[in-house]
């Protein structure tokens, strides 16, 4: 890469987190941030074409995002670490992009520790050697608040969107909120903007039945949080008039993660640490089963080992608490009809069970 060229950073698309990421890189590190275009079929096609066939689909999405970001002008790519195959993504992505002839800088954060934000400092220095620690810290704090707020608003929408009187109202406000977040300067702004839009969301007319159907979604990190990769499963379920619960987000899994508590709660089902998101999957499934939820939907990318390991445990919880669990495994090609059939049948089943219990 030409050394004189200013840094234009990109990170793979992942839920709505590109907004806080943009804030951190532009305001904190003082570099330009290129948001990869939203993931589409084309993204997946490009990603699959240059990925090993058997790798999990998030890898393919990420690679597609990188290439599309490079086409949009990015010259510095960032990848994160993780406690499953994700930990090796960075090196492989870098090698593939190099082999394809892309002249880009690759910053692999797999050495940084999410529980200790300071470790990111060394990695950030690779992006911009003239870092200002005070500036980075302040931007980081604002960014973390932003993540929390985004997750909060997301939760509210997920639990209410199925009941709005006029279809599409919440989605519009939600989109406007995310746009507004792109304009904020300080932590205060973040809080204020969130308050304003939360009020707007709460003002949307909804009509909820007395007996609510509650379904919890659990599963692998990327697939559960990137709606395109799970065929917008939350939206599909919510449309049927279901309250959707999802614990898995950046706030809960990183910022306020409590592994000890999880291990305690699930000790009758899990003895040893099982890696990546599997512990949280079991933890939330058990909690929601105990809370009398109507069903659980488990999503993962095809071949995701930690989540495959969690499945027998979920089957046991399903039998113990008589809670139906629907399992989805998404790959680069999945028929829409098959997903619809299973979701519809799941909904029918929940409704029939509910009728019967009356």
């Amino acid at each position, binding site marked *: 890469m030409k050394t004189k060229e200013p840094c234009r950073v990109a990170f793979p698309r992942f839920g709505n987190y590109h907004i806080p990421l943009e804030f951190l890189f532009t305001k904190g590190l003082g570099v330009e941030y290129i948001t990869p275009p939203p993931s589409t*079929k*084309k993204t997946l096609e490009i990603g699959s074409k240059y990925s090993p066939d058997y790798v999990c689909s998030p890898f393919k999405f990420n690679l597609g995002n990188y290439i599309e970001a490079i086409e949009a002008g990015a010259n510095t790519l960032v990848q994160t670490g993780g406690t499953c195959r994700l930990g090796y993504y960075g090196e492989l992505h870098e090698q593939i992009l190099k082999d394809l002839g892309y002249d880009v800088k690759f910053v692999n954060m797999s050495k940084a520790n999410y529980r200790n934000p300071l470790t990111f400092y060394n990695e950030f220095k690779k992006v911009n050697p003239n870092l200002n620690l005070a500036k980075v810290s302040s931007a980081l704090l604002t960014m973390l608040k932003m993540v929390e707020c985004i997750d909060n608003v997301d939760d509210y929408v997920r639990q209410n969107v199925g009941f709005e009187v006029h279809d599409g109202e919440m989605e519009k406000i939600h989109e406007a909120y995310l746009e507004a977040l792109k304009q904020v300067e300080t932590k205060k702004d973040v809080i204020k903007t969130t308050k304003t839009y939360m009020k707007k969301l709460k003002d949307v007319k909804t009509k909820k039945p007395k007996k609510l159907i509650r379904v919890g979604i659990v599963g692998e990190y990327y697939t559960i949080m990137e709606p395109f990769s799970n065929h917008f499963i939350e939206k599909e379920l919510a449309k049927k008039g279901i309250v959707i619960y999802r614990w898995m987000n950046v706030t809960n899994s990183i910022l306020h993660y409590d592994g000890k508590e999880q291990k305690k709660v699930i000790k009758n089902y899990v003895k040893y640490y099982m890696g990546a998101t599997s512990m949280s999957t079991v933890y939330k499934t058990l909690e929601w089963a105990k809370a009398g939820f109507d069903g659980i939907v488990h999503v993962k990318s095809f071949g995701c080992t930690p989540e495959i390991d969690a499945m027998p445990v979920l089957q046991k919880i399903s039998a113990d608490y008589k809670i139906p669990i629907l399992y989805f495994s998404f790959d680069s090609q999945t028929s829409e009809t*098959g997903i619809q*059939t*299973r979701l519809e049948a799941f909904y029918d*089943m929940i409704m029939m069970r509910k*009728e019967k219990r009356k």
Partner: protein
Amino acid sequence: MKKAYLGIDIGSISTKAVIIDEKNKILASEYLWTEGNPMEAVKKVLRSLEPQFKKKTYQIVSVGTTGSARKLIGAMVGASVVKNEITAHAIGTTSLYPDVRTILEIGGQDSKIILIEDGVVVDYAMNTLCAAGTGSFLSSQARRLGVEVEEFGKIALKSKKPTNIAARCTVFAESDLVHKAQIGHRKEDIIAGLCKAVVTNYLNNVGKGKKIVAPVVFQGGVSKNIGVTKAFEEATGCDVIVDPNSHLMGALGVAILARKSKKEKEFSFNITDMEFKTIGIECQKCANHCEIICVYKNNQMIDSWGNRCENGAIPIKNKEA
């Protein structure tokens, strides 16, 4: 005039239909191959059903569709109920066997297990990535062995020592089968082994983690194969019930759902004379390029689907094809 209800189950391999009266009694039924053309198959089914029942006594007032082409055919016949095949099968079977606890279903391209308690579905699973435990696998192997698939069951029963055939996937099973045939295994043993392989594959993939409790009902096209039924009985240790109409359960179920829907609209057989066609469009409004299917009846668009967002919606307003 008495009321009657039509249920059509359009699978990838076969198309099934029944007409029932208000007491769920089957007045007419048909089963034939879809042959990759669901619209034509449905026309054929309807032409065959028409003379089977007393049109002077009964009027079809509601239609239900299920199976993988349910949406397309639902639009074509003006169905009041379009239902997934899992629910349809469960409804159909429980109407005949109210005490059933486990439904094993193997069709042409998919297979499922449905668990029932007190007449209500409590759990189900469907095969996802593998076709080894399905009817089309048996058909292709029958062709390889030069045997009619309809004869499979009877031949399998003759075997005293079924050959072991790898059941993990069709490709493995097929090469295993070829190998065993070449080293001299008898044909009936190989066929019995195949039936066992289908059951093993089904129980490992679809039935994985599910408790099979009697009464067990086995249905779908493959249930006509007595060799597979026997293999199921051996593997599960339960008696396996196969209804004479085991291939019609989905159609029956969706006919019952049409009756229960109370949405009534007189159905006319003259749609068999109408011209139906579909046109696929690739939406160019964003990089998703959704494939939108438009359905036309006598050159008028009656429905469209496939778009993920509102941008791709095609308004229905008497568009000429």
